[in-house]
């Protein structure tokens, strides 16, 4: 149990170090106000930060701490890119965008940059990927790295999977399929939930009651469980038509998630419906379509846009989870959830070939990175529009 003794020793050293630092600071500076009024927690924070830096440096020089070095390098590069991107945004573009970039935190800049990169990858996957997504090569399970001495091939920098498809290609195509399908599903959910929600707000009465109760019941079933149940039935309906199952999945998840959109659209719509300008439009004799599209929708864009970002994250994660469990996006389409499941056992080779162990994490990390990026941006947008400065 040397691991736990080490942890305990380091914790004790940090606790003692903080006390020592404050005491020495008082003694050496002749009880300067800064040290005199310093709470223990602040001293602890300083010492813990120093300990973390030292620990990181020690870890950095360890020969087998490859993942730590990669993580730190990735973090620094990402932060630098986000900084450059924000700097560029402050000087290029129209007055409005420059103003937005001026108050933007680094996390939001990183989020926007990441979403742009994903969008480019998804749209131009066919041009960027070296091969076709279902193209099978002679040698399966080729090691990544492109080093012929260790069983790689420069033509396949990330190696090949269990039936010999190029992994770099499938990673790039995953952006198109996984993100594209999630995006289409979210759009469908918004079309359905948004229009029904606004209709319920405008019409009210029994229509509103009926829809709201139905949505209440649907929301009482955990969404992943409900999706799995419906996918069981859909897979029986689809039979051997794999592509049909993907279509069914889009519809199923869109319907399940549209209930959440319905709730928000109805709540926002109800606040707008009582406004005077709606009354005026009704007196003018405008129809339902005009009311919804010309009066309510423009006034509900901000909350709905933020919800779109969050909803996309949920849909994206649900689809990834379904694919990971083996009932989501079907082969031969390349997608990240399925890739994680297929490559998962490579993790056990981390000690021998870190790059091979990183493969499943790359696919899973691609999913995580996009949702983190969207969340960063949504967080910033919400913070900006609500004017919260806590």
């Amino acid at each position, binding site marked *: 149990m040397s*691991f736990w003794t080490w942890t305990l020793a380091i914790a004790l050293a940090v606790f003692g170090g903080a006390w020592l630092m404050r005491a020495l600071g008082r003694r050496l500076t002749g009880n300067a106000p800064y040290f005199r009024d310093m*709470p223990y*927690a602040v001293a602890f*924070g300083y010492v813990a*930060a120093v300990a973390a830096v030292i620990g990181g440096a020690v870890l950095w020089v360890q020969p*087998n701490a490859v*993942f730590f070095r990669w993580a730190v390098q990735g973090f620094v590069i990402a932060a630098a890119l986000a900084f450059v991107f924000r700097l560029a945004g402050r000087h290029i573009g129209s007055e409005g965008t420059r103003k937005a970039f001026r108050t933007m935190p680094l*996390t939001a800049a990183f989020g926007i940059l990441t979403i742009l990169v994903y969008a480019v990858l998804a749209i131009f996957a066919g041009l960027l990927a070296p091969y076709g997504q279902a193209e099978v090569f002679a040698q399966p399970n080729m090691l990544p790295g492109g080093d012929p001495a260790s069983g790689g091939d420069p033509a396949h920098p990330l190696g090949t999977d269990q039936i010999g498809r190029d992994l770099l290609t499938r990673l790039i195509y995953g952006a198109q399929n996984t993100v594209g399908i999630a995006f289409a599903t979210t759009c469908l959910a918004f079309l359905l939930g948004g229009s029904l929600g606004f209709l319920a707000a405008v019409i009210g009465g029994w229509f509103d009651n009926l829809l709201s109760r139905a949505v*209440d*019941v649907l929301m*009482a*079933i*955990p*969404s*992943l*469980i*409900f999706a*799995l*149940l*419906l*996918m*069981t*039935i859909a*897979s*029986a*309906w689809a039979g051997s038509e794999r592509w049909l199952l993907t279509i069914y999945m889009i519809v199923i998840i869109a319907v399940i998630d549209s209930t959440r959109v319905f709730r928000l659209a109805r709540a926002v719509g109800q606040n707008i419906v009582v406004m005077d300008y709606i009354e005026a439009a009704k007196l003018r004799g405008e129809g339902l379509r005009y009311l919804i599209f010309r009066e309510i929708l423009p006034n509900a864009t901000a909350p709905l846009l933020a919800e779109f970002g969050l909803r996309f*994250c949920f849909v994206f*994660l649900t689809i*990834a*989870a379904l694919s*990971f*469990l*083996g*009932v989501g996006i079907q082969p031969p389409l390349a997608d990240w*959830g399925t890739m*994680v499941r297929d490559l*998962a056992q490579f*993790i*056990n080779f*981390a*000690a021998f070939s870190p790059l091979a*162990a990183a493969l*499943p*994490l790359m696919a*899973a*990390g691609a*999913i*995580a990175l996009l*949702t*983190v990026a*969207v*969340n*960063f941006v949504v*967080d910033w947008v919400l913070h900006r529009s609500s004017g919260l400065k*806590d």
Partner: protein
Amino acid sequence: MSSVAKIIGQRLLLGLLTLFVISVIIFTAVNMLPGDFAQAVLGQGATPEAVAAIRRDLGLDQPFLVRYWSWLSDMLRGDLGTSFAQANFATFTGNESQAGATVMAQIGPRFENTLFLAGVTAMIAVPFAVGLGILSALFRNSAFDKGANVFALTSISSPEFFLAYVLILFLAVLNPILPSLSNIYEGMGMGERLQRTLLPALTLTLVVTAHMMRMTRAAIINLLASPYIEMARLKGIKPMRVIVRHALPNALAPIINVIAINLAYLITGVVVVEVVFVYPGIGQLFVDSVKIRDIPVVQACCLIFAAAYILLNLMADIFSILSNPRLRHPK
């Protein structure tokens, strides 16, 4: 107090009603399957006579409402039906007694395991999240607060399997501290069982912590602007004591609410995590049954998940009613 009892009674009735409607949905959905149980059991080479015989035996020739009623009353008596896969296996091995073929026999021990996992997770996650929330409210807008916020956003938006594999990589493969497979079985010592459950529990902790932590922080910070906190501060009470003794009790209602909601969320998260760690819980059984279309098991699992989800949400509702004086003493 009677009005509270009335509200809670209403909520309970509403919960029961929801559960009833869900059972209708589940039953209807399963009845939309092409073909029926008889064909599914017998497979492709079934003769029409055999199919008709099984249909008669199982009552599949009855009208929809009659079948639904008998299914529901069986469920209420705790008879969850017979698993297709286990029944086939029993016939195959010549074991006609079908003792292990009922869904109940399959789900029972696994349900216990899942509850164990959820319990361990809750015991780690709730103190951790509330503590972190209190600390980041205390040191708001400091580097610690910002770091905790980024950590929370990152962990809430990562898929469960990403967190699981990262933990496996660092805690099981590179530094073999914990086992990466949670193959627990009956009669295992408590210590070892706990050790094998720890990695899935840690993963789930990461998944649910963020929401609880942010809610704790927000609830406390909301209160910090109120006059009585100002008063406590002016009396010269230390910041930590202001938060723990003065702000926290009033912030408890939203915190308990969000804890219950996150425990309900655990139920969904448990499915993926159990599959990653090969943990013999109900979630893994559910996914396996979905893949082989073992309908009785899927139905039963679905109903159990939904019931647990409704129950926890109901508890969140009831706690927030009980802790809100405005609802307890309506005008």
